């Protein structure tokens, strides 16, 4: 990974009273599939638009491949964008849409033809050259937008929630296809999404954003298993929160008093005894059984999710979500005991 490929430093943008992007610093590598993940209004699209040159930052710099591009207009930067609405030119057919950006490259007619044919083959729409935008399905438009941007051979491709308008099935197929195309062309993709599953399944690395700030940048596995804050844990995947209080810290282990009883966790912390903390456990790391364990409760609800079952368990008035394989057959109202995978328990300061 080339550390200096796309370097964003201390970038900020204010719209009226809202600080849309607040001092973001990121390094994105050559050929990396990088996602900006966050709820709507977190500043991810504004950040993307600043990288593309559609919005000028108030402060900070953007450098692409060693060149400062902070104030360059979109037509002068080696970035291209796949818009959320796809923005397929309605007065042009698919072929002319894809060839649109090649006029400014001053290629020979033969070379232009070749590039367009190659792009059509890449998106598997060879026979669609003469069609107009309104004759295309949502998925086909999305591919045309992708081909139109990639035919310019940008250094970075920017994608603004490109799968948002597609239905679930098509979305999943496009996720795989996008990732395949990205590997083939070897161009860095910056992918904006609010869908954490999408980000986890596609990305090399993900930046989780909230209120204009980047909370954590990590690969999907780290983000899921070792979120650096309660906010990241909450946004990426489903979690159970338990308030707790540190009772004792001894070397690499911490004893915490929680609603699930006393837990001893093997980890280092700079918190002292008496500090209030939040314990976070993902549903798949909780274990239901009939055998006696420290905590007991009652099944409040069961949802069958096809590949697994999800239980809501009432424990001392609180509800805990537990995911279990289909073989776990507990009925509503049944008393159960609750255990957990000790290494998967996360601890954050309150």
């Amino acid at each position, binding site marked *: 990974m080339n550390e200096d490929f796309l370097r964003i430093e201390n970038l900020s943008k204010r719209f009226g009273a809202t600080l849309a992007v607040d001092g973001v610093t990121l390094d994105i590598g050559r050929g990396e599939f990088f996602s900006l993940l966050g709820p709507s209004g977190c500043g991810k699209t504004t950040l993307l638009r600043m990288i593309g040159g559609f919005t000028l930052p108030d402060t900070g710099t953007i450098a692409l491949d060693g060149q400062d591009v902070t104030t360059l207009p*979109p*037509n002068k930067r080696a970035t291209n964008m796949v818009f959320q609405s*796809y923005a397929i030119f309605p007065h042009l057919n698919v072929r002319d849409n894809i060839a649109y950006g090649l006029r400014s490259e001053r290629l020979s007619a033969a070379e232009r033809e070749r590039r367009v044919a190659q792009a059509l083959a890449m998106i598997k729409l060879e026979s669609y050259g003469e069609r107009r935008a309104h004759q295309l399905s949502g998925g086909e438009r999305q591919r045309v937008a992708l081909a139109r941007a990639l035919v310019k051979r940008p250094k970075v491709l920017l994608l603004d929630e490109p799968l948002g308008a597609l239905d679930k099935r098509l979305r999943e197929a496009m996720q795989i296809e996008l990732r395949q195309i990205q590997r083939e062309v070897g161009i860095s993709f910056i992918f904006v999404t609010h869908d954490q599953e999408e980000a986890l399944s596609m990305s090399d690395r993900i930046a989780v954003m909230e209120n204009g700030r980047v909370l954590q940048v990590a690969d999907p596995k780290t983000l899921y298993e070792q979120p650096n804050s309660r906010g990241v844990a909450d946004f990426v995947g489903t979690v159970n929160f338990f308030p707790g209080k540190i009772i004792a810290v001894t070397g690499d282990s911490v004893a915490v008093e929680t609603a699930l009883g006393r837990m001893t966790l093997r980890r280092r912390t700079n918190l002292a005894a008496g500090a209030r903390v939040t314990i976070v456990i993902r549903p798949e790391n909780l274990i239901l059984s009939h055998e006696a364990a420290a905590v007991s409760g009652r099944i409040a609800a069961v949802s069958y999710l096809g590949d697994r079952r999800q239980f809501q368990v009432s424990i001392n008035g609180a509800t805990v979500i537990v995911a279990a394989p289909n073989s776990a057959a507990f009925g509503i109202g049944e008393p159960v005991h609750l255990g957990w995978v000790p290494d998967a328990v996360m601890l954050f300061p309150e």
Partner: protein
Amino acid sequence: MLRRPAASPSRRFAPQDEGGWASRSTRHGGRGLAIYAVLYLAFLYVPVLLLPLFSFNDSAFIAFPLSGFTTKWYAAMAADEDMRAALGNTLKVGAAASLISTILGLLTAKVLARGIPGGAFFAGFASLPLFIPDIVLGIALLMLVTSLDIPLSLQSVIVGHVAICLPFAVAVLLSRFEGFDVALEEASRDLGETGWMTFWRVTFPLVLPGIVASLLLTFIVSFDDFLIAFFLCGTDTTLPVYIWGELRFPYKLPNVLALGSTILIASSALIALAEWVRRQGVSGQPRDPGIGI
């Protein structure tokens, strides 16, 4: 479930019953509506159709019964030098006024559609001349032109016509620009085009039907105008001013009828053309851009 007896009779009855009631009412409504439509169209077009009818009538008097078929009024019209000059003036004024007001309207609509502070106020204010009576505007413009010592001519008529045409141009073009996805222009910039080339390659073709509609509408507004031209034209008469002058001579009336019929046919052809252009434009319009922004 499928064999449940109660389901089938009710299923068989309901649509038949509804269908009978619906079709009867449609027949009634249909006849009344047809009569209304015929009367409506007759009211609109019968007076207009009297024009070509009498223009081919072999008599200088406009009265029934018709006395015979002739094309001599058309020949007389074609031979009338003054009339041809007036027609030429009207076409010149119409072309200039429609072109200028459409260009100004295009720039105005583009800015207003983008949404600027005070834009709604400006848009309202810019369309106000639509509600100022032409006679008021005509007198005001005459006062202005004479107080500035500008000689009355076709140029002063053009200025007056731009003033009355501009609100029409803005209204037509603004409706075309609204619902225009800004991302299309951004995509063009992103794909390497300058602002100017983006206008030519994306904005212009997409609003072209609006531009054509604006050109035609403003041309007709200018062509149609009598009052402002009457105040501002000086000795260079436009066609409506010329026709008004001719009406003083009863023997020239059939010439005016021939002229009127010619204008009717020409403008019908123009409107058919405009409609055809608009339809061409529609097939290239964005239908469903996926997500609306």
